[in-house]
């Protein structure tokens, strides 16, 4: 019943930035990605014998952990009504630091802490530019993305950095046949889900994303919430960098660069509205899996990897297109009722 009430808004979804769209993830939308994921699994399983092997599925998981960690934090940023396109280059910078520290023999727990702190600092810079200097998030993070990219280039200095994994937990270890890092993702997502649903901070993130003025008037400390959200995604980028480094083992001038857009793609495919105010980290997890399975399956079925981007692009448009159109239809139905 409450959903019906919130849906009674005939405003067309496109147009003004502050439209009043229904804020909950619609029933259609909630099913789109799980269904597409199931379809994907069936298609790839029938096309390739190697797809449904435990070894391959573990690979899919292993390869998507860093993306999952970034996308989880990014979900909150996007629910807040912001965006962060600097996550990939930030991961590259932290990965370089992680590699250097590991080679230098710094104890692993310290490396992980420093990685999270450095990522958090970079997030803090983004958050400060957005919330204190009032620069639109897309502009601010496009700017810092370029700065991180350049920083990495300077650190890299012409020679690729090779480093062993910080810990075997972060790379090859399995527990019941599942890569241990997968449990890290489960824990992080459980915490994010709990915080976003049941803690004041999480509700404030939704409130700011829905209507920043209303949130401010009802006493939400908008600047602090904004700052904290960007710090949070930064910390997760730092953690992701540790896993990335353990998986890839080498840092190059462009390491991580393609993760920025992949993370945004995972979030929006997972049903979080890019205009803010609605979405969930659970949806994002499906989005991540969807993209990871797609990339893996494409390789296994022998399609040249160049096609990856074409498919990712198509699925972003398909998933968000279905979302937007189903929203508009239900709004129209509600208006007629």
């Amino acid at each position, binding site marked *: 019943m409450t959903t019906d009430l919130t849906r009674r808004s005939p405003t067309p979804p496109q147009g*003004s930035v502050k439209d009043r769209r229904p804020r909950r993830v619609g029933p259609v939308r909630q099913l789109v990605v799980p269904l597409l994921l199931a379809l994907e699994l069936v298609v790839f399983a029938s096309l390739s014998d190697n797809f449904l092997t435990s070894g391959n599925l573990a690979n899919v998981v292993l390869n998507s952990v860093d993306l999952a960690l970034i996308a989880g934090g990014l979900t909150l940023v996007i629910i807040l009504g912001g965006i962060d396109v600097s996550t990939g280059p930030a991961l590259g910078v932290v990965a370089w630091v992680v590699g250097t520290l590991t080679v230098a023999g710094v104890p692993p727990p310290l490396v992980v802490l420093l990685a999270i702190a450095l990522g958090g600092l970079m997030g803090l810079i983004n958050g400060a530019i957005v919330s204190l200097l009032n620069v639109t998030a897309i502009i601010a993070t496009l700017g810092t993305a370029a700065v991180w990219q350049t920083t990495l280039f300077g650190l890299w200095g012409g020679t690729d950095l090779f480093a062993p994994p910080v810990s075997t937990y972060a790379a090859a270890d399995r527990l019941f046949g599942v890569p241990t890092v997968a449990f890290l993702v489960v824990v992080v997502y459980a915490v994010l889900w709990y915080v976003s649903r049941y803690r004041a901070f999480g509700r404030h993130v939704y409130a700011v994303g829905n209507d920043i003025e209303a949130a401010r008037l009802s006493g939400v400390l908008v600047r602090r919430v904004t700052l904290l959200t960007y710090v949070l995604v930064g910390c997760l980028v730092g953690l992701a960098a540790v896993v990335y480094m353990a998986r890839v083992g080498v840092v190059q001038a462009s390491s991580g660069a393609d993760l920025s857009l992949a993370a945004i793609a995972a979030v929006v495919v997972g049903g979080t509205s890019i205009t803010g105010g609605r979405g969930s980290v659970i949806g994002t997890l499906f989005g991540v899996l969807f993209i990871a399975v797609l990339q893996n399956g494409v390789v296994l079925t022998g399609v040249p990897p160049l096609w990856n981007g074409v498919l990712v692009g198509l699925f972003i448009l398909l998933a968000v297109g279905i979302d937007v159109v189903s929203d508009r239809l239900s709004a129209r139905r509600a208006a007629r009722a």
Partner: protein
Amino acid sequence: MSAVTSQFSRVHISGLLRERTALLIALIIATSVAMSFISPYFLVVDNLLTMTQFGAVIGLLALGQTLVILGGGGGIDISVGSMLSLCGVLMGMVVAQGVSVWVAAATALAIGLFLGALNGFLVTVVGIPALIATLGTLYLFGSSAQVLAGGTQIGGFDQAGFSFLGTGTVIGIPTQVLFVLLPVYALAAWAMRRTLFGRRVYEVGNNDRASRLVGASPARTRFSLYCLSGLLAGLGAVVTNSWLLVARPGAGEGFELQSITIAVLGGTHIFGGRGRVSGTLLAVLLIVILSSGLQLAGVDPSWQAGVLGVVLVLSVVLNNAFVRGSGERA
């Protein structure tokens, strides 16, 4: 009612923009002086030539970006670079069929228009937010260019005097600047100031509802802006191909950041409705001077991206300071 609002805001806008123009010109002079101290080669004709040749392509994309952002409603086109790559590769494939290079160039323009229309359709008809729609097509167009080119370059453009467009000069000015960039900017400046279309763009950029009330269709206006952005990307592809004489599938990579930076630096407000074509042209000039100066000073091109990022953020902080100073928006 809308006429009143737009008249009203225009009074404020003109003051704001004059400051922006003065600022840009001051920055251009300061950068040029600094660069000619750093490198004695800076003011040599050859260098100025190369500088502006590079500037022509990014200038075309930045103009498209400016138009799309001016249209408001969260409008942005991050697929400009991918459109350029795809148009360039398709043009190469047409040339490889033995068709005249000029016909192929026309085809590239038509394809650009079509790709832009696709963006416009996704944003204004389907209703996908512009950032996401063009993110999707960024992947789609960029990867299509890679797939079609098979990961390699396509040549065959060196015929029928085509290279003159990209490498020739007339009275010392590069052809693509004299015959492409400047006329296009002049036309755009005229259209934005003197035609109903230009007026409509500022109206939808400022106020959706008001513009609908005077009988304009915001969707239709925005749709045509995405088409124009695509067309300009197609034109950029033609110029790139005649300059490099090969179509590279990654030719447009990174241009999305540069084009947004230039548009914003030129005084275009990211939420639309405010900004001017002439500001974008001045910003192109500034960026070109900056990056070529850095290159001459021996700074690796990869560092320029970082400088550009800082410039981008600073220019918005500056924008905010000006906007708040004039008391136009709280």
